[in-house]
């Protein structure tokens, strides 16, 4: 997998990789190889890829419960990522984190986070460290429209704005927080809310990776110049369920026509139109090959030993008492 995300074909290729990853993961959820299910990112790939295309290798991100796309867009190895979802020792987190906690700190991926809104202040803290070290590193924090209602994220906007932290708030507005439509969940508007904290905000087409990349690039430039945080609202849609368990419990909260209408704006189709059929075929084939290999790698990797269940609990190496006897 190439790290760079410069050409239209590279953008397409990374989105295709994410799509392929999610489809593979969905199959592994069904087969029982991935336990606990996932929050699929399908339909939203342009956001992760467009934003990460504007970042340098040593920039940082924080992610969400719906985090596979972000982690892969920032360059994580799909094989180790899949191994993580399958709970294997070769996983990014040695099988300790799973879908909602995948991290690769060496690549600037500070981790997905299972608590809505919780990663934003962590990103701001990384940005503060960057500012103090004058490292020029910029931090992106991804979150959903639902996350905009979580107090800690709102508090963070104030801190970031006050202290001119090099952090970019990327709101993936997919129209729903689980079953709640944004119209019943969000008073005012996302961008007005950011502006209320003195943060300039912009709404972009979340299905167009190129648009997103240019908006993100402007925000990155602002941050590197010391001008502080920006807010980006990306209008997008998840094509599938909130979480794979939805397939069991049957919820109906989105009109079928709405889903169909958004599917017509598939970000992969939009980006495919910008490259040659050959480029597209090559990218598709490459993604398929990478995921086939990733699947094999993941499923062939060892399960961790239950005796090691509390490895890494304390960074200091401290060990508490066990639970027995």
């Amino acid at each position, binding site marked *: 997998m190439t790290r760079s995300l410069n050409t239209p074909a590279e953008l397409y290729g990374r989105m295709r990789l994410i799509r392929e990853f999610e489809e593979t993961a969905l199959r592994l959820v069904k087969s029982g190889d*991935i*336990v*606990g*299910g996932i929050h699929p990112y399908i339909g939203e790939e342009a956001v992760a890829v467009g934003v990460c295309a504007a970042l340098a290798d040593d920039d940082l991100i924080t992610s969400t419960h719906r985090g596979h796309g972000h982690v892969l867009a920032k360059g994580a190895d799909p094989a180790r990522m899949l191994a*993580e979802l399958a*709970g*294997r020792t070769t996983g990014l*987190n040695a*099988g*300790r*984190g*799973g*879908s*909602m*906690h995948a991290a690769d700190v060496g690549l600037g991926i500070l981790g997905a*986070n*299972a*608590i*809505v*809104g919780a990663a934003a202040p962590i990103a701001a803290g990384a940005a503060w460290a960057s500012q103090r070290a004058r490292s020029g590193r910029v931090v992106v924090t991804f979150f959903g429209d*639902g*996350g905009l*209602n*979580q*107090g800690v994220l709102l508090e963070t906007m104030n801190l970031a704005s006050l202290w001119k932290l090099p952090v970019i708030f990327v709101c993936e507005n997919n129209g729903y*927080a*689980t*079953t*709640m439509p944004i119209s*019943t*969940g*969000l008073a005012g508007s996302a961008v007005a809310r950011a502006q209320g904290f003195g943060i300039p905000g912009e709404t972009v087409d979340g299905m167009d990776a190129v648009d997103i990349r240019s908006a993100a690039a402007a925000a990155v430039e602002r941050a590197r110049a010391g001008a502080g945080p920006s807010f980006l609202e990306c209008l997008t849609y998840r094509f599938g369920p909130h979480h794979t368990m939805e397939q069991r*419990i049957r*919820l109906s*909260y989105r009109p079928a026509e709405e889903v169909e209408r958004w599917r017509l704006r598939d970000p992969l189709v939009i980006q495919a139109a910008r490259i040659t059929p050959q480029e597209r075929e090559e990218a598709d084939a490459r993604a398929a090959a990478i995921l086939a290999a990733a699947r094999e790698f993941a499923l062939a990797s060892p*399960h*961790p*030993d*239950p*005796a*090691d*269940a*509390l490895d890494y*609990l*304390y960074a200091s190496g401290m060990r*508490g*008492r*066990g*639970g*027995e*006897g």
Partner: protein
Amino acid sequence: MAKLSYAKALNRALRDELTRDESVCVLGEDVGAGMAQLTLGLQAQFGPGRVMDTPISEQAFTSLATGAALCGMRPVIEFQIPSLLFLVLEQIANQAHKFPLMTGGQVAVPVTYVVPGSGSREGWAGQHSDHPYSIYAHVGVTTVVPAMPSDAYGLLVSAIRSDDPTVVFAPAGAMGVREDVTRDLVPVPIGRARIHRAGTDVTCVAVGHLVHEALAAAGELAGEVSVEVFDPRTVYPFDWPALADSLERTGRLVVMDDSNRSCGLAGEVLASAAEGMRLIAPPARVTRPDGSVLPFALGLDRAVQPARAALVSAIRSVMK
């Protein structure tokens, strides 16, 4: 009567209370869709004014319920994840719980907090697998952890009718349990334990879904050790007289508790027994390890939870 599932029992309790008392209402994320089963069908029956979907603002809607309770309502809040009970500790322990005393008895705060699916959900990893009832027992908020469908029904009803804030932890490991219900479902008094199996050698206190493990262990050991299975049902206030009674009979104590070890409920039970009840052998406990974080991989997740095999050997060890 048919088999009643635990999840259905909770749902029925809520429905019955919504029907009985106009001041009862429900707040939470995705309660309209009934995603966590607790509220299934209730919005259709009672309308979105009484079963209200909330944005992802747990702290605000938890204290909003407090304010509504001060004005005569009896809100029930559903939390989707057990660790949200960390997030709202300020609102429950420092606000709702303290209002009656701080106002000199001017008010009551009849709010019920329900966590349908507390503890490990297998594969939901570190931030979704807590079971933080010991924290609520510590701060002194009424806290129940039903093991059986009939108790889930009866304790949720009592929680809603209680004039004090009350947390109902419904263990993920119990949500699927079914029970033959032969009598009418009735309220279960808060603070009253239940002995599921009488025994003469060892009192085994088990909490929530672990009651089923304790029953299985008692079965396994039948003939070898006579185990009394003691389900406190309410973890705060704990039914100390019933425990003292049981220990009068057995004199030996093992506790199985899905909390971290230090300052968890099992420790409290051991301490209370040690300071004032009959013990003829050192007591033992089977818990999560100190400071546990549940790792994602299933084998690790399970390794951190209290297991039946450990309980069996703890029971044997107190018999030595």
